[in-house]
C-alpha cells in the first residue's frame, strides 16, 4: 500500500485547533475495527466531543426584557477523559477462533499499547490495537450572543475552513435561543431557559450534531457573577471512512453511528466583569465532564 503521509494544518477561524503537523502513517490503528468494536473504540471520542460542544454556551442568565445586549467572545472547552473511558470490553473478530471477549482493551483515548490475546491451545494471537493515550480533548469556538427582545436572546457559534487537502471542509455552526423566566416571577436570582443546537462536519468523515436544553440561573454581585444550569443533552455522531485491505486491496465502507452517552449535566461557574470585558469559567458535571473558560467583550451583558 502506498505510503501515506499527511501534513495537517488546521487553523480554523476562531476555533483554536493549533496549527500542527502530523506526518505519520497510522492507517492500521483502526484496521480491525469495522463493527461493534469500532463503535466502542470511538464512543469516548463522541462523548468528549459532545461534552465540549455543549459547554460554555452561557455565562449568566440575566436577560433584559427589552434592550441591547451583546457578547462576543472566545469559548474554550476541555473534556477531561476519565480512566473508565480509556478501556472497553471487546470481542475478537475475523479468522481468530475461538471468539474471545476481552476486558481492558484500549479505546481511542487509551494506552498506546495494544492488547494481545493468545489461544493457549493453538498459539494463535489476536491483537487489539492501542489508543492514543490522551487525557483530555480540547476545543475552542467563537461565540456571539445578542438580544434582547421580550426577554429573549440568540446565541451563535461558527467556525469553518475552506476545503483542506486530504480532510475536506470543516465547519461548525451552532445557534441557541433563550428566554428569561425571572421577568415573569419575582425571584432573587436570574432564571432563563435555553435551547441550543450545533452541527459539526468534517468533509465526508464526521457529521455530528448536538442539542442542549438548559435551565440557567445566575446571581451577580459587583464584578462577580455566579452562574449555573441544569441541562439535558441529545446528540449523534456519524463517523465513516473507507478501508482498503493492504493485502487483498478489498475496500470496506466503515460507518459508525454513535450516540453520545451524556444526558443530564450540571453546570457551575463564575464570571468576572471587568468593564466590558468578561472572563468566566465553569465546570460541567456529567458522565463526561468538561471544563470551560471564556473571554469576551459584552455590552449590557452583566
Amino acid at each position, binding site marked *: 500500500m502506498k505510503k501515506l503521509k499527511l501534513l495537517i494544518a488546521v487553523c480554523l477561524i476562531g476555533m483554536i485547533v493549533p496549527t500542527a503537523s502530523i506526518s505519520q502513517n497510522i492507517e492500521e490503528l*483502526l484496521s480491525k475495527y469495522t463493527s461493534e468494536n469500532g463503535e466502542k473504540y470511538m464512543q469516548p471520542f463522541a462523548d468528549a466531543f459532545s461534552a465540549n460542544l455543549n459547554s460554555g454556551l452561557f455565562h449568566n442568565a440575566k436577560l433584559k426584557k427589552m434592550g441591547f445586549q451583546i457578547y462576543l467572545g472566545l469559548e474554550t472547552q476541555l473534556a477531561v477523559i476519565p480512566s473508565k473511558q480509556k478501556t472497553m470490553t471487546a470481542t475478537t473478530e475475523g479468522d481468530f477462533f475461538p471468539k474471545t471477549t476481552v476486558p481492558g482493551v484500549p479505546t481511542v483515548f487509551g494506552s498506546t499499547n495494544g492488547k494481545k490475546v493468545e489461544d493457549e*491451545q493453538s498459539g494463535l494471537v489476536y491483537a487489539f490495537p492501542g489508543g492514543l493515550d490522551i*487525557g483530555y480533548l480540547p476545543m475552542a469556538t467563537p461565540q456571539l450572543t445578542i438580544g434582547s427582545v421580550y426577554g429573549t436572546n440568540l446565541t451563535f457559534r461558527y467556525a469553518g475552513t475552506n476545503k483542506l487537502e486530504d480532510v475536506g471542509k470543516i465547519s461548525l455552526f451552532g445557534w441557541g435561543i433563550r428566554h428569561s423566566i425571572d421577568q415573569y416571577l419575582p425571584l432573587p436570582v436570574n432564571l432563563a431557559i435555553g435551547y441550543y443546537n450545533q452541527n459539526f462536519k468534517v468533509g465526508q468523515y464526521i457529521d455530528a450534531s448536538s442539542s442542549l436544553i438548559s435551565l440557567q440561573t445566575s446571581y451577580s454581585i459587583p464584578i462577580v457573577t455566579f452562574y449555573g444550569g441544569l441541562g439535558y443533552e441529545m446528540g449523534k455522531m456519524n463517523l465513516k471512512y473507507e478501508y482498503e485491505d493492504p493485502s487483498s486491496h478489498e475496500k470496506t465502507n466503515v460507518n459508525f453511528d454513535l450516540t453520545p452517552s451524556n444526558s443530564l449535566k450540571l453546570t457551575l461557574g463564575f464570571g468576572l466583569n471587568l468593564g466590558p470585558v468578561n472572563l468566566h469559567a465553569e465546570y460541567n458535571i456529567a458522565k463526561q465532564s468538561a471544563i470551560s473558560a471564556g473571554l469576551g467583550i459584552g455590552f449590557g451583558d452583566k
Partner: protein
Amino acid sequence: MNKVKFLLFVTSIAVLMSCDIKDVKLYPSFTHNAEVIVNHEGNYIEFIDIQVSEIKDAMAGLDTEGGITDVMIEGIILDVTKNAAIGSPDNSASSITSNIVLTGWDGVEYILIENLSINLDQDTQEINLQSSLRKAGIKQFRDILFAIAQNSIPSGKEKVGIRLTGTPTPANAYINAKLEIRIKVVVEYSTEL
C-alpha cells in the same frame, strides 16, 4: 487512504494540544495463500514451499512506518475444493486424515496440524484449523516470520517448507482435491506519533 484522513482528523483534534510524541503500536496484517493439489491414489505426501521473498514482499506491502516488534499468526484457514485436477479421475475418497508439518530453519520438523479429518462430501468447504493446530509448530512459524521481518534470515534459507501427508478413507481411494491454506499474519510495529 480515506481511513488515514479520517484518523488524522481525529488525532489532529485529540493530539495537537498535548504535543507529546507517543510510541504507538500498529497491527497491520496480510494473508498469505499457499495451495497444493492432491491428485493421487491412496496415501499422499505433498510439499508446499513458501518463498521468503513472498513474505518479505507482503510485509513491504503493509508500508507501515516504525520498527517491527512482533509477528503473530491470527488464524489459519484451509479451503478444500474437490475434483480440482481437471482430466484426472474423480475423487473417490469420502474423507482424508491429514497432518501438516513445518520444517524449521534448524532442520527440525514441527507439527503444525495433526490428525485433521476432512470430509470430502462437499465440492468446496472452508475449515478453520484452530482446533487442530499445535502450539509448538505455530511458535516456530512465528519465529521464522519474525526472522524474515527482522531480515535476520539464516544464510541459504530462501523458503519455508511445509509438508502435507494424509490417508484417504477408504484406503487406496483416489484423492482429487485442492488444499489451499490461508494464513493471516499480523505484524506489530512500534512507531512514534
